[in-house]
């Protein structure tokens, strides 16, 4: 009963927001509920649809605050933030990115402000580095398939099953498999990098199978999901659970599988850059994201998955994701710096591209 009420409220909010916010390209301005006293500029590599409920709920707490939200592709956000840090000034008050390795790199280069958040105590230890980069979501990397096109017998539940499926029925799935282009997508690169670290053999086989099946590469989550929704591809690999679930809610034919062998868990990062013009407000928004209220809104309306609650309805996956050890969180910490090494990155992307572009034999 409560859940339905909340959903109704959320829907009402969404409708209201749709009217109130003026869209101009990839920038959205959320006008303050009361007389405007401050403007918080969020630069995010995160879908606006996911962030909208959080921003609106934040404005309930801070009615005098207008929020300017700018959506970026992860790599663009990183480039802009690096440049801002070098120059000592930049437009964003707070940065959100699913590519936490990029945020860690920024923090390592001294581009992040420390903010000891009182709300961070309940957050997992792997989702906080130096009180500079915090992870505020819990997003498994999942398979998404079109249930109208993929027969139940074909549905893969592990990485191995996916690779075998593609080997077994190359003709059926040729050009029907979608994943990120790691060169274009920071999050795609991060997930691929961690796949290669977690399970090098399986990932190698998977890439080979992708190559045989002439996998479709797209820059971002939304585009890959869009291709599935369009019916162009049948199975999408390594989609962030939150986006996948949002798509599932719009189109219940898009089914979600959390892999049962291992599932990478990403915690979307938030960071206050040293170039922030609005430190206190940014800190307040950060606290809100980590707070119980923010986490609840995120779980119910924005990102759907949570470490402490079971998988959302309609998602196929292991019962106890974290306790079983299947969930492999991408620890926010200095180890992610390796992913940002220039040579390593170039080689990895080159290898990946060459593997996936042409069949080995």
């Amino acid at each position, binding site marked *: 009963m409560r859940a339905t009420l909340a959903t109704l409220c959320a829907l009402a909010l969404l409708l209201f927001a749709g009217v109130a916010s003026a869209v101009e390209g990839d920038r959205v301005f959320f006008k303050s509920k009361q007389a405007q006293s401050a403007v918080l500029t969020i630069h995010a590599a995160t879908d606006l649809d996911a962030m909208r409920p959080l921003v609106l709920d934040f404005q309930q707490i801070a009615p005098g605050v207008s929020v300017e939200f700018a959506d970026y592709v992860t790599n663009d956000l990183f480039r802009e933030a690096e440049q801002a840090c070098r120059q000592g000034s930049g437009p964003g008050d707070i940065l959100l990115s699913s590519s936490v390795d990029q945020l860690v790199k920024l923090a390592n280069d*001294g581009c992040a402000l420390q903010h000891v958040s009182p709300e961070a105590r309940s957050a997992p230890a792997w989702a906080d580095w130096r009180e500079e980069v915090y992870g505020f979501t819990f997003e498994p990397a999942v398979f998404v398939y079109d249930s109208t096109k993929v027969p139940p017998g074909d549905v893969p539940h592990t990485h191995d099953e996916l690779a075998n499926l593609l080997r077994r029925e190359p003709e059926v799935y040729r050009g029907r498999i979608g994943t990120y282009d790691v060169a274009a997508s920071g999050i795609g690169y991060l997930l691929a990098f961690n796949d290669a670290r977690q399970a090098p053999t399986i990932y190698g086989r998977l890439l080979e199978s992708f190559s045989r099946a002439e996998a479709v590469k797209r820059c971002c989550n939304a585009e890959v999901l869009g291709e599935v929704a369009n019916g162009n591809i049948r199975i999408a690999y390594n989609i962030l659970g939150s986006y996948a679930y949002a798509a599932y809610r719009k189109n219940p034919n898009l089914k979600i599988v959390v892999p049962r062998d291992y599932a990478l868990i990403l915690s979307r990062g938030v960071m206050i850059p040293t170039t922030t013009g609005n430190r206190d407000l940014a800190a307040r928004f950060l606290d809100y994201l980590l707070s119980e209220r923010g986490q609840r809104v995120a779980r119910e309306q924005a990102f759907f998955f949570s470490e402490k609650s079971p998988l959302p309805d309609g998602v196929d996956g292991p019962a106890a994701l974290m306790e079983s050890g299947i969930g492999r969180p991408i620890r926010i910490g200095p180890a992610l710096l390796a992913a940002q090494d220039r040579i390593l990155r170039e080689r990895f992307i080159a290898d990946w591209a060459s593997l996936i572009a042409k069949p080995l034999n």
Partner: protein
Amino acid sequence: MQSIERSLFSRLVLRVALVLAVGAAILVTAAWYYARAAADDAYDRLLQGAAFQMTESLTVEEGTLTFDLPPSAFELLGLAGRDRIFYRVMAPSGRTLTGYDDLPPGIDLGAVRSNPVFHSAVYRGVPVRVAVTGRALSDPAVSGWAHIIIAQTTEARAELASQLTLRASVLVAIMSVLALAGSALAVRYSLRPVADLGEALRSRDPQDLTPLAVAVPRELSPFVASINHFMNRLDGRMKLLQRFVADSAHQLRTPLTALSAQVSLINDDSLSDGDRRHLTRVRDRAAELSRFTNQLLSHAMVIHRFDSAQLVPVNLTEAARKAFRAAVPITIDPDIVVSFEAPDDEVTVLGDALSLREAIVNVIDNALRHGTISRLEVRVATGDGLAMVDVEDDGPGLSAADFDHLTRRFTSTKSGEGSAGLGFAIASEVAAALGGALRFREKTGAHGFTVVLELPLHAQERS
């Protein structure tokens, strides 16, 4: 005027505390130094491990130097969870392969071989620990030493060092407090003989000039010896003085007797009233002088006797009765009621009959002269292991405030009357010499002012 110095205890404890504080400061500094060295040592191993892993990843492929950064190296460095990592991979030509172009080696790269060289530096405004290693490349295309520089911020080291230092400091603090408490106890214990000596001196009878017989530590024995030497000399002087007084009194007695006789020969009938009054005064003064001379002699005698005579059991009743007879003159005013009471049992004390009699005589004499209006009672009694001679009169008596200095020589409560109070002094000295005391009881409704000579009962009597 004796200036008040700080006590020995506080001096000693203060100095011990000072030494302990300096010691603790040195220890804490040393602990901090070692803790820092230990933290550096521990975290240098991480750097070293990472450096080795990274040098292993330097390879020459088809004539090109390549570097495949091992993520495990960063995971290793990530064990120092909060610390930032900077690195730079340099080709033999000095070109930066990857990493932070502006990270300076900080040392002469020519001297660096495959063993990591560590140093501390500041990079990007934060203190860092830097490890530099080299790898020899012997490919025809690329040869020489390639170098890897890894720098890590020092937060984890600082935290470990401060934690270790804090723990060591707590231990040092506990030890210091224990040591201080122990020292205070030891000092207190060591100084106890000083207090004991003081107590022995304080509780001594004012007239006791015999050597101190207190067991003291070796350090205090010169002090005690000095005191004893001093007392010995004082005793000698006192004896000399007493002999002088006795001799003087003795010498005075003869002319005094003659004077009294001459005065008594004066025919006062032929004198005028005024002259007769003067003569009476001369006679009174002569009598007083005579009595005083007798008292001086008696005092000297008492002291002399206690110096020489052995104490023997004495019948106190007998001595008191003799004293009563001697002290109460035959010419006593018939209006005054005098009485003497004694128990039927024999009351025996250890003492010297003559001195005892002298003491009691003086007490009764004093009562007659200064107290008695119409009644004088002398009682011998026993009780509580003590023998007592009470001398009670119905005079106004003395207040308790005066009791303290009554037994001093030549003090009188009634100033100006000219009575030199040697009487109580003599009685008190005798009582003290026999282990007793001279006490006073204030006048109350039930009984008059009473002087009590208390003496311990002779042991045989008690058993």
